[in-house]
């Protein structure tokens, strides 16, 4: 391996064409991964098959080798090695890495341009949602009748576990990945992220993790659900090794992305963009990835220890050897609850960014919004044991964890008031992104209020482990989170693709998904309240009607999502060409032309007021510079009819 890397590093530095480094792409990455995995498998199989933990060791080593080979094959190690050897990049190298003049090929490489990385994240997220969504359809199909027999018990458990983890990863990256990378740097007036190479690294680590996760399906599945609780995880088939490796690689990716995005927002804002002039979306993204920076290393350590239990017979989670399953639940939920806000905050705050644009009013209570975000971030690390009320761990602390959890509803409620206050008496321009705002308000209220029931210790004793919990967190993560991400996609689609999204297909999809969603999970609340346990393949006839309703709702979501996919793909390819600022918005990303130049701004902007000054006068600017400036955009939105007719 080291030989290969040295060879890459020694490739001639960038004199025009040639050079091994310049030929690396997704294909060489997959080839490298497969080659390394085969070597790892062969050696470990030969040497280590002996002993009790043989298959776990072989699987773990093979998967580690896959990830290493994949990263070698994409060229991720070239930069550090060149640094070590003192061969710094020339400007030309940087331009090549940024994907200058490479057409579509740059999307399949270790490309550093944040706009390319944003699109790559968007596509990876959509693939993950497609996989997770298909698994969800299988789960609901199995549950259509009490004993459908559609899936066997083992398969059912495996499908539920993989669905859970795929969706968790997809929702974690769905806003900060595509929009945090593509939009946020332009929004703050920067030419790229703080660390462009780390940006590509985080994306390709995520890509390397996806096959590892999917390999679980062929290794006996993840029978524990996405939480991977010990000691069941200690006893599970080798699919669990794929689980631990997925988390370890994904945690690295998230930590790198978190450091990069946080540094970008903190140090690269345009001159004059003080904190009170920074768009609220930037706060949302930073809050999300900032929480992820300490949270995911803990998740990683929980899984490193699990891997050691499984491959070396370590005693971390095995009570018979002096370990404790409570250790796992603590480490897991120390990450797990902040992670909920990693998912929900940027999605809700993206909608908060959208609301002023379509109500033509400043964001109501900007400072309150910022304080609420800070409050949520602060409280979210003090609530983890509300997932453990019934585990017997520290029952004396249940009361205090109940209190901290309920306190979170205060800043969360304030975020609602900020959005409602912005809409209040506004002249609302009801577009697809704005409809997502309304849908989020509806869904998140239901998700939030049911969360208060679950945070209540006596109620939780009755409801924990039931379908009520499943319905609750789908209302927050999907009803608020995914709806927010789809709203953000509708909103920024014209900037990211240069085309308008098909409004008619978007509308049909919106209603199918939102109605289907509420039908599905209202049904699930009902059967959960009646006592149906989650993660169980068969259920009592008592729950038959609710489950049938849920499954019908789920099919409705499925059809709606297919239509959304059609809308995105067809509009991306042949949608109407979008003007630079179709919504008449005032943040900086709408000031750059379509298609966006490689370094975004020929001249870096200087910000002289806040981004929500709708209805205020234009500043006086030298006439030659007016077209660069968002205030030059139409005071009123580009006539709605324009965009509508141009689509038909």
């Amino acid at each position, binding site marked *: 391996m080291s030989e290969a890397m040295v060879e890459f590093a020694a490739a001639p530095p960038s004199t025009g064409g040639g050079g091994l480094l310049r030929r690396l792409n997704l294909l060489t990455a997959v080839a490298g991964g497969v080659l390394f995995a085969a070597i790892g498998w062969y050696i470990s199989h030969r040497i280590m098959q002996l002993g009790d933990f043989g298959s776990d060791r072989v699987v773990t080593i093979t998967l580690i080798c896959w990830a290493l080979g994949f990263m070698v094959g994409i060229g991720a190690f070239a930069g550090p090695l060149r640094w*070590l050897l003192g061969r710094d990049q020339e400007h030309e190298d940087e331009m090549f890495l940024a994907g200058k003049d490479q057409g579509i090929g740059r999307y399949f490489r270790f490309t550093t341009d944040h706009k390319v990385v944003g699109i790559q994240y968007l596509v990876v997220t959509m693939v993950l949602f497609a996989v997770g969504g298909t698994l969800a359809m299988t789960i609901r199909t199995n549950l259509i009748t009490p004993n459908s027999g559609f899936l066997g018990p083992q398969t059912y458990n495996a499908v539920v576990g993989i669905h859970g983890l795929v969706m968790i990863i997809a929702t974690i990256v769905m806003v900060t990945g595509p929009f945090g990378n593509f939009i946020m740097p332009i929004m703050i007036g920067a030419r790229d992220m703080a660390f462009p190479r780390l940006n590509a690294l985080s994306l390709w680590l995520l890509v390397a993790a996806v096959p590892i996760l999917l390999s679980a399906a062929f290794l006996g599945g993840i029978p524990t659900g996405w939480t991977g609780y010990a000691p069941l995880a200690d006893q599970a088939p080798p699919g669990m090794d794929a689980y631990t490796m997925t988390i370890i690689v994904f945690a690295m990716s998230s930590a790198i992305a978190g450091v990069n995005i*946080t540094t970008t927002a903190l140090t690269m804002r345009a001159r004059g963009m003080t904190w009170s002039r920074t768009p609220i979306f930037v706060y949302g993204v930073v809050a999300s990835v900032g929480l992820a920076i300490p949270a995911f290393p803990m998740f990683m350590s929980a899984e490193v220890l699990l891997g050691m239990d499984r491959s070396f017979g370590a005693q971390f989670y095995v009570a018979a050897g002096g370990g404790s399953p409570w250790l796992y639940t603590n480490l897991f939920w120390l990450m797990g609850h902040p992670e909920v806000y990693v998912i929900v905050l940027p999605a809700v705050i993206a909608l908060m960014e959208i609301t002023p644009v379509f109500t033509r009013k400043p964001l109501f209570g900007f400072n309150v919004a910022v304080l609420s975000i800070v409050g949520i971030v602060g409280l979210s690390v003090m609530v983890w044991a509300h997932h453990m009320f019934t585990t017997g761990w520290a029952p004396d602390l249940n009361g205090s964890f109940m209190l901290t959890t309920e306190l979170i509803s205060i800043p969360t409620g304030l975020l609602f008031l900020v959005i409602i206050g912005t809409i209040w008496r506004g002249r609302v321009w009801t577009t697809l992104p704005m409809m997502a705002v309304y849908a989020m308000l509806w869904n998140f209220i239901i998700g939030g209020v049911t969360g208060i029931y679950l945070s209540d210790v006596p109620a939780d004793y009755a409801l924990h482990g039931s379908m009520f919990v499943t319905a609750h967190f789908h209302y927050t993560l999907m009803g608020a989170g995914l709806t927010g991400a789809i709203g953000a996609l509708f909103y920024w689609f014209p900037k990211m693709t240069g085309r308008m999204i098909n409004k008619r297909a978007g509308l049909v999809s919106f209603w199918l998904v939102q109605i289907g969603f509420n039908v599905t999970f209202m049904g699930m609340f009902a059967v959960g309240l009646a006592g149906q346990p989650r993660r169980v393949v068969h259920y009592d006839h008592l729950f038959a009607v609710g489950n049938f309703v849920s499954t019908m709702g789920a099919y409705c979501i499925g059809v709606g999502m297919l239509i959304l996919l059609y809308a995105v793909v067809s509009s991306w390819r042949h949608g109407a060409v979008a003007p630079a600022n179709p919504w008449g918005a005032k943040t900086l990303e709408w000031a750059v032309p379509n298609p966006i130049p490689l370094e975004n701004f020929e001249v870096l902007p200087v910000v002289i007021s806040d981004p929500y000054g709708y209805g205020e006068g234009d500043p006086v600017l030298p006439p030659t510079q007016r077209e660069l400036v968002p205030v030059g955009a139409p005071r009123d939105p580009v006539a709605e009819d324009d965009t509508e007719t141009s689509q038909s």
Partner: protein
Amino acid sequence: MTAVIPAGPARHVEDLDAVGRRWRLGVVLFIFADAAFVASLVFTYFYLRGLNTDSGWFPDGAASTPIWIGWTIAAGTVLSAAAYRWGHSGIRAGKEERLVLGAGLAVLVVLVVVVGQLIQLATFPFGVADSSYGSTTYVLGAANMFHLLITLFVGLGIVNRGRLHKFSSTNNWQVQIIGLWWTWVAAAAVLSAFTTSFVASPNLLVGNG
């Protein structure tokens, strides 16, 4: 609303100080992430030790690793960090040779510590599967090893780049940020030695857990 400043140089060259500040924040955040990882291992150690499930933390008749080994490893890491700092203060005063000498010395010390850590991991008088004490002590040693290997890599880079005259009294932010990492690695080694100094569980009730 925005205004625009006149065009800068065509190649968008960035101010060295700005780049340095940015990387410093990045490294501090990476250290923060790594500290969360180390903290969860330390938490694991004290939690399992305090719980002593089924008296399985450190079973009767088990052997522990001598405490002085961990502290020697920590002392070596601190020494290397100090040598590195000395080298860094050299380049700040424009003395290139002192940077190469200090960082080179630091790398050599780390190399010795790596060997020491390897020997410790290979010769623990217990197995990783023997007890939760054994498991946790192993993983702390392995985490330290991981730190040391990264430090070795970046240390070698600084020595080599110093040799190639990449640094000066005004351009040494790379030396500085790697110094931050080095200091953290030393602190983590001390924390690890401190943690493993507490062996016997305070919770000795028979049949607890």
